[in-house]
């Protein structure tokens, strides 16, 4: 049980860190680097400024390192020059030694050969000795100059001895000269040799010191350069780590946040310590999710109220349909009785009808049928409005439709003394549509034509144009004024009240006709000249497409 808990805790921690590698996670949580990252994030400066500052610090370190290196190189050059000079001085000292040896050699030669010419050679070597000594003296230290003074003192003594030897050779006093040579000159030469050796030793000591100083300086320079390079690299790594994680952490949080938001969680918020661009971005993201959440709430509320409205509308629509069905039945049942009894009376089912009752019975029947027509119109329009009117599509012959209208209206035409003609081409193909509704439309138009015509004729004609059936109902009636022409298909519209009084009607027939034609995918239009007559057309597809 405990193991499970620990495992799940570890999982939580891992998922909380959003897939950070274990190393980075350790650095951020267990070392001061984490708080440093937080501190950098809280610095109120742009990421650009932070990066620039880090870059400048690292650059400064590299410049310092370069300065130290240059200084070291300059020092080394100086030391090697000094070394070179020291070598030169040693060489000169050796030349002194050499010149001294040659002097001794020539002096010995002069004594041996008893030759004055050798004395001149001694003098030449002496000059060279003095020259080298002078050059050596100029570059020497105080200690060396002191030694050189002593050498010069001894050399003067040597030269005196040489002069004496030369004189002795000229005077032929060879034994005396030999004694001089062995005595004075030999001793002086030995002293000079010792002094030169001391000079070389001083120089060697100096060179040793110099060598040690160069080694020390080199070591110091290597250490310094290594320190600067190490510091620069460490600082670069540190700045890189800290600055990049001060940007990456809010970026990861933003990613997590956007993941939650895109998954539909608009309550998600993001908290970052940053006071830079990422801080501003986090604030904007929070505003965004807040706004999305608000919109979501609004949308859900709207959807809920729409659902409720839809349900109540569906209920209302169902109630309306039921009401219509009931109403239709309730109205037709008494109408059936009224018209049925009247018809049976007129048919003499109850015995012969007295002449004086025949007319009122006919009136009852006519008005009953009229009332039925009104009821049918109102119910049809209500059904259309409620969206409960469906077409019953089937094959039909246009001729049958026109014939049934002619048969129904023949007596009315006769009654009004009007010519009533129908014209259907015999070769018309079988049509497909709601024959009952087409009949009703044609009946409405022809009925109106008969009603609004006092004399002349009414004609129904049909023709096929392409795949459209064009029905035409023309009359020579009172016509419709230009103003009223656009409104004849509106509900409860008749040209004017006087017309209603004279010709009757509800004004529903044309609007129902228009609706039925449109349900067939057709159109209806009218042309009229007041006093001349009107012509109504309607066009329906020969074969009506079944609505999807």
């Amino acid at each position, binding site marked *: 049980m405990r193991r499970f808990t620990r495992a799940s805790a570890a999982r939580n921690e891992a998922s909380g860190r959003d897939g950070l590698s274990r190393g980075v996670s350790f650095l951020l949580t267990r070392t001061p680097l984490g708080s440093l990252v937080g501190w950098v994030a809280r610095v109120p400066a742009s990421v650009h400024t932070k990066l620039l500052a880090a870059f400048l610090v690292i650059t400064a370190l590299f410049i310092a390192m370069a300065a130290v290196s240059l200084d070291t190189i300059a020092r080394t050059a100086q030391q090697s020059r000094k070394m070179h000079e020291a070598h030169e001085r040693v060489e000169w000292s050796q030349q002194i030694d050499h010149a001294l040896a040659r002097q001794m050699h020539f002096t010995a030669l002069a004594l041996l050969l008893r030759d004055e010419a050798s004395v001149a050679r001694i003098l030449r070597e002496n000059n060279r000795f003095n020259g080298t000594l002078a050059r050596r003296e100029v570059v020497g230290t105080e200690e060396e100059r002191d030694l050189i003074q002593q050498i010069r003192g001894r050399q003067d003594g040597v030269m005196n001895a040489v002069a004496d030897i030369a004189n002795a050779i000229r005077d032929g006093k060879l034994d005396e000269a030999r004694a001089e040579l062995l005595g004075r000159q030999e001793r002086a030469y030995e002293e000079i040799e010792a002094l030169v050796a001391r000079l070389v030793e001083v120089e060697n000591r100096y060179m040793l010191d110099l060598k040690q100083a160069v080694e020390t300086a080199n070591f110091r320079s290597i250490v310094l350069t290594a320190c600067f390079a190490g510091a620069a690299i460490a600082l670069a790594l540190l700045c890189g780590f800290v600055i990049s994680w001060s940007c990456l952490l809010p970026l990861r949080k933003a990613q997590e946040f956007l993941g939650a938001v895109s998954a539909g969680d608009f309550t998600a918020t993001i908290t970052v310590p940053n006071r830079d661009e990422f801080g501003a971005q986090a604030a904007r993201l929070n505003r965004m999710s807040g706004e999305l959440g608000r919109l979501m709430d609004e949308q859900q509320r709207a959807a809920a109220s729409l659902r409720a409205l839809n349900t109540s509308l569906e209920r209302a629509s169902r109630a309306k349909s039921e009401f219509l069905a009931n109403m239709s039945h309730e109205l037709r*049942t008494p109408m059936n009785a009224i018209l*049925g009894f009247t018809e049976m009376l007129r048919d003499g089912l109850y015995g012969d009808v007295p002449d004086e009752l025949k007319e009122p019975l006919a009136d009852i029947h006519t008005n009953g049928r009229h009332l039925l027509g009104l009821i049918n119109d109102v119910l049809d329009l209500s059904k259309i409005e409620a969206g409960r009117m469906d077409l019953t599509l089937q094959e039909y012959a246009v001729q049958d439709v026109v014939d049934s209208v002619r048969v129904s209206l023949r007596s009315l035409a006769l009654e009004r003394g009007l010519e009533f003609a129908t014209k259907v081409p015999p070769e018309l193909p079988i049509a497909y549509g709601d024959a009952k509704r087409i009949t009703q439309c044609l009946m409405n138009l022809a009925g109106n034509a008969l009603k609004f015509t006092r004399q002349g004729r009414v004609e129904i004609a049909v023709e096929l144009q392409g795949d459209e059936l064009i029905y035409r109902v023309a009359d020579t009636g009172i016509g419709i004024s230009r103003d009223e022409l656009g409104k004849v298909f509106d509900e409860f519209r008749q040209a004017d009240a006087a017309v209603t009084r004279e010709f009757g009607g509800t004004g529903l027939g044309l609007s129902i006709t228009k609706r039925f034609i449109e349900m067939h995918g057709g159109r209806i239009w009218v042309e009229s000249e007041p006093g001349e007559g009107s012509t109504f057309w309607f066009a329906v597809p020969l074969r009506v497409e079944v609505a999807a």
Partner: protein
Amino acid sequence: MRDATVLYVEDNEYNRKIVRQLLMRTSYRLREAVDGEAALGMVREERPDLILMDVQLPKMSGLDVTRALRGDPATADVPIIVVTSFALSGDEQRAMAAGASAYIAKPYSPRDLLALIHTFLAER
């Protein structure tokens, strides 16, 4: 051959009266039912030669009664004329689908109804 029996199923007294008076002068025997359930009982009791069936009836609709009768082998071949109220489009199709032999819309002309009844009973 006995006189033909016509069963009229209709809840409205006046409409029943029309048919009653219409058939009075014929040789047909009229029986009347005021709702669907009563109609079913009467048909099982005595098989009529023709049924006039109103659609909107109390307790059980005329179409349900028609279906029930068509489902019973004993009454499956009784001619049924359904009287529709033309309330919603498709009433006729629904009547024919339920098994009606013919339909007539309310308000009907008594003359036409009688002619229709004659057609069915003459075939007998």
